[in-house]
């Protein structure tokens, strides 16, 4: 039927009271699938270890119907570790999604830009220089995240100053990131060499990026930061769409560009730093998760919620693989992510190159 004058609605929208949004069925379905997959892998991960439990026993235990030993294994031993993984995955993925969209560069992610390396240098500095191995635990608990934050901020300022001269397009930020990363990696090596052997050993464990031995003290700082980020991002997220059209159009359509960019990058740095402070530098999650959700949803930018779900899945799944594949040896989750992430980055570079060399 080719009725003339018939106006087909161009966008379907949803309205609940005063709240309205454009309805994108595919994006919603993809995000919902990612959440379900994360839930499934988490339940699986809660059941797998030295003491194996079936998923239905895990669910029963989570609902308070497990016996004493099941409760100990699931709620006390494994749950905090997996929640820390979920939180770190969310934080890294959201940090990456914000960075990519704000910089309008598919390769801009906190780890490739050297922000993660900056956080590492800060954290290792406190672990190794902040006193001997007998220094009080409290200083370390407060000191490591703060130092990671300062290191990440320092790296960000460096990157912004340098890219201010080189430009933010194409492969430039990546090259700047390599330089900044090299600088902070050098600093880390220096701290490790000059530190007492006990401190150096502990710093080395932290540097592998792992969920081993991680529990509530690591979980809460990330969870709190995600909450803060969510409060800031909910009203700001729609501005990311304007950012994609370039600074001029964003300003012309009413976005205070400089102020918004500073807040967005600040949130991205905060999330990267707290996650690094808690579980060490987990590379590639911030780069991969936004691209996966964007391509799966068929949208022009990664939705923050969808990226968060993918990030959580990647970290929990990698940790599960890391601690089971060579059991009883526990690999760091970061190693597994790097094995997938390395080829992904290569593929991304090749496809980017095709697009930009018109």
């Amino acid at each position, binding site marked *: 039927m080719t009725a003339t004058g018939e106006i087909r609605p*161009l966008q379907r929208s949803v309205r609940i009271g*005063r*709240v309205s949004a454009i309805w994108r069925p595919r994006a919603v379905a993809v995000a919902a699938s990612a959440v379900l997959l994360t839930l499934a892998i988490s339940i699986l991960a809660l059941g797998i270890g030295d003491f194996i439990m079936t998923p239905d026993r895990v669910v029963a235990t989570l609902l308070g119907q497990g016996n004493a030993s099941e409760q100990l294994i699931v709620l006390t031993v494994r749950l905090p570790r997996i929640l820390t993984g979920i939180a770190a995955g969310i934080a890294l993925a959201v940090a990456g999604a914000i960075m990519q969209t704000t910089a309008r560069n598919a390769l801009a992610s906190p780890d490739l830009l050297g922000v993660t390396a900056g956080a590492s240098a800060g954290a290792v500095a406190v672990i190794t220089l902040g006193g001997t191995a007998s220094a009080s635990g409290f200083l370390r608990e407060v000191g490591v995240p703060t130092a990671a934050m300062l290191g990440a901020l320092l790296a960000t300022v460096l990157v912004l100053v340098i890219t201010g001269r080189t430009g933010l397009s194409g492969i430039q930020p990546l090259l700047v990131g390599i330089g900044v990363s090299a600088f902070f990696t050098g600093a880390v090596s220096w701290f490790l060499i000059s530190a007492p052997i006990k401190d150096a050993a502990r710093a080395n464990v932290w540097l592998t990026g792992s969920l081993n031995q991680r529990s509530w003290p690591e979980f809460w700082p990330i969870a709190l930061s995600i909450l803060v980020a969510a409060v800031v991002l909910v009203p700001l997220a729609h501005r990311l769409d304007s950012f994609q059209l370039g600074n001029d159009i964003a*300003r*012309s359509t009413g976005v205070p560009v400089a102020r918004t960019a500073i807040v967005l990058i600040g949130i991205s740095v905060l999330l990267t730093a707290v996650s690094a402070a808690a579980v060490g530098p987990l590379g590639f999650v911030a780069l991969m998760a936004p691209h996966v959700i964007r391509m799966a949803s068929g949208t*022009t930018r990664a939705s923050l919620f969808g990226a968060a779900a993918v990030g959580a899945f990647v970290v929990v799944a990698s940790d599960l693989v890391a601690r089971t594949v060579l059991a009883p040896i526990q690999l760091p989750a970061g190693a597994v992510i790097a094995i997938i992430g390395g080829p992904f980055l290569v593929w991304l570079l090749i496809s980017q190159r095709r697009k930009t060399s018109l």
Partner: protein
Amino acid sequence: MTSAEILELQAQNVSVTFGGGEPALRSVDVTIRPGEITAIVGPNGSGKSTLLRAMGRLLRPTDGAVLLDGVDILKRPTRELARDLGILPQSPIAPEGLTVVDLVSRGRDPHRRWFDQWAASDEDIVNLALEKTGMLELAHARVDDLSGGQRQRAWIAMALAQETRVLLLDEPTTYLDVAHQLDVLELIQRMNTVDRATIVMVLHDLSMAARYSDRIIALSDGEIVADGTPQEVITPAVLATVFDLGATVILDPLTRRPHVLPGRRLGAHW
């Protein structure tokens, strides 16, 4: 004061200097009259785009101010200003895969609140903007798949959906063949006559500027050297001063507007 005296967009004593070099604009004073189409012309590097971008708050003047209805535009909240004043930069680039309707919807940004992302009125306005620009059939096409003329119409549709009283356009016909230049300029003229939008545009083609604008401002070396109706500005004398161009100006028998026949360059230039 009668309504005819309301001063819409006004550049007061605006100077712009980039990084310690020669000033790109030297104390420019200009008042854009509401309801008119004003074209800014001049040779490359004369400061046309700089003036337009300063008036569109994309550039902070080194000295002087730009006023909209008497208020400094840099002192107004960005979102509120975006409901009155829009600017389309030269050759904007859409993100890969963005559809036309999604692009045009961005024009509604300054009108909506974060919890109210898509009101029924937004839908109607976007629909109308697509219809007016002839982009309704291409609503779901990807912007990066469009031809140059279609792409420019999509961006203009976005500006139309923004519903600003004043719209500034930086070389809206760049890279378009003559037929598509006409399409875009006819569209801009309709925005002016039908939607009562005040238009300021930077144009390279002098005959097109003469044909489609009420007023032409000619810039040279960051200063206004001529300002008036097309008949007043597009003259051999002005063209000689501004472009160092010897030219014959004839009257287009169809439009009754001046038409430039370029002759030869005056003096040596390299």
